[in-house]
């Protein structure tokens, strides 16, 4: 069982990455049926991840540190950016426009990685340091 928030959340990042890679691969091979199905699976998992952070983790962090306007706000804004990229990709996916799809998915991938990196290097470690009820929070996020 994961012992820290960082380990738990980082593992979920990886899980999303893998779903992403499968969807992108299928689309790049022209297999739209499978690709869009996998894309949906990825988008759902990503949304689940954002929700965990926005509804559970960030509020806990804000409460424990008293920092409400800083890092978590920035992370929420980046989530919005990624959501709008996902939406755009959904649109070009329906239109089966491969060039647009792959160009946008590459951009999403890199945005996501940069975001995850900030969380894993900075935000999660800070969270682990300032919270004492990590286990309980992990369990709540897992529900």
């Amino acid at each position: 069982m994961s012992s820290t928030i960082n380990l738990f959340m980082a593992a979920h990042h990886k899980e999303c990455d893998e779903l992403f890679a499968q969807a992108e691969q299928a689309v790049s091979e022209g297999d739209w049926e499978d690709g869009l199905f996998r894309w949906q699976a990825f988008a759902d998992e990503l949304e689940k991840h954002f929700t965990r952070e926005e509804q559970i983790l960030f509020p806990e962090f804000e409460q424990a540190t008293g920092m409400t306007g800083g890092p978590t706000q920035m992370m929420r804004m980046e989530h919005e950016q990624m959501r709008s990229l996902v939406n755009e990709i959904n649109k070009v996916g329906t239109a089966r426009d491969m060039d647009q799809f792959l160009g946008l998915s590459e951009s999403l991938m890199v945005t996501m990685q940069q975001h995850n990196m900030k969380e894993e290097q900075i935000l999660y470690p800070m969270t682990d340091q300032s919270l004492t009820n990590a286990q309980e929070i992990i369990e709540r996020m897992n529900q």
Partner: protein
Amino acid sequence: MNLHKLSLDTIPPILTPFRFFLSALLFGVLAALLLLYSREDFWFTRWSNSNLALTHLLTIGFMLMVMMGALYQFIPVMNGQLIPGSKKLAPVIHVLMILGVLALVSGFLFSNSELFQAALAALGTASGLFALSLLPLLISRLGNQLIVYLLRVLFLVLLITLGLGLFLLLGHALPELNLPYRFYTDLHVLWGLAGWVVLIIMAVSSQVTPMFYVISEFSPRYLKILSLLIILTLVVMSFYTVFISKQSGTDSAQPFIYYTLAFLLSAELLVFVFYTLLKIAQRKRKIADVTINFYRLSMFSLLAALMLWWVAVFLPLAHLTYLLAILLIYGLAISIINGMLHKIVSFLIFLHLQKLSLKRPEAMTLVPNMKQVISTRNSQIQFMLHLLSGSLLLISVHYPALTVLAAVFMLANFCWLSWCLFQAYLLYLESRKKILACPEISMSL
């Protein structure tokens, strides 16, 4: 850790990394022009003026410049803090670097000790200032320890390389000192190529490839142990060269220890090559990507260099040092940089425009995606040009008549890279103007 100094909104102004990248390109083009100008004469002797000039156009003009720009960009992401001086000091360091490289190179070309003195001042100040800017990070305990560890190691190795370089330069700048500098040239080269270049690729690929290609994390133990072993081996080799082989005279046979050390170093580099290739092969994101080709080319170049080196122990090989230098500088280092620049620049532009559009919902669709910034086709052309020019360089060592052709393709390679990045920057300026024309919504932050 100090929570309040951390910010997750730290990207330096786009010009901070860009000014380094753009001037790096200029030096790449100059290097190709120099080769075109010297032609067959280039391969005459390792110590020719044009040889030393071209080497440093590539190693500090191109490679070191790109590294500086990239560090200004990526350290904040990993660490939550800008490198101090990202806005004001970086341009100063940048200008000093340009002047220093130009002075060094023209010093070599015209054998002029005043130019060498200018180079010594400019490069010494630039590296000192850059080192000082990095110092707070190197002694901090922020963020991920592995990254800080890798940066420390990298910093040490770079410092030794540059230190030896500056010492060699002192020999050129003040000939009256009669420094036995040439004796240290091989050490400078060894630390630069087997140390700095290898370790920076190790550090960058361990941090970047898992993100872009969905690869499982590089083992921290592998990274720590291998980098430490490489440094230790280089340290022992340096001591051996300076204290033992110096006394017994360079000509007398001193094979056993020397070959043991050389064997150790090549075994370590082999581990590095195979570990990196294995990681790349295990990537989960299998979609065709030109940067992967550049990565493989880079690793195969190091492998080829190691093989040549060992063959040369048993069979005398003509022009060995040239072949090694091409494989290590153009093959190992510049291949990866070339590929990474395509990715980094298209990402940077996308990132800055996206940030700009954040408060302007209507502008969202005006942000070009990464493949619109630099197209896959343009990256593929880059790879072909790089592969072709590198191969021609190797061939022209043995068939000097082909040097002109090699130089032309090398010029094409750097010009194409410049063009790709330049049109990306134009697209940035254009999209920026359009985005800024959209109405801004107020957001409560």
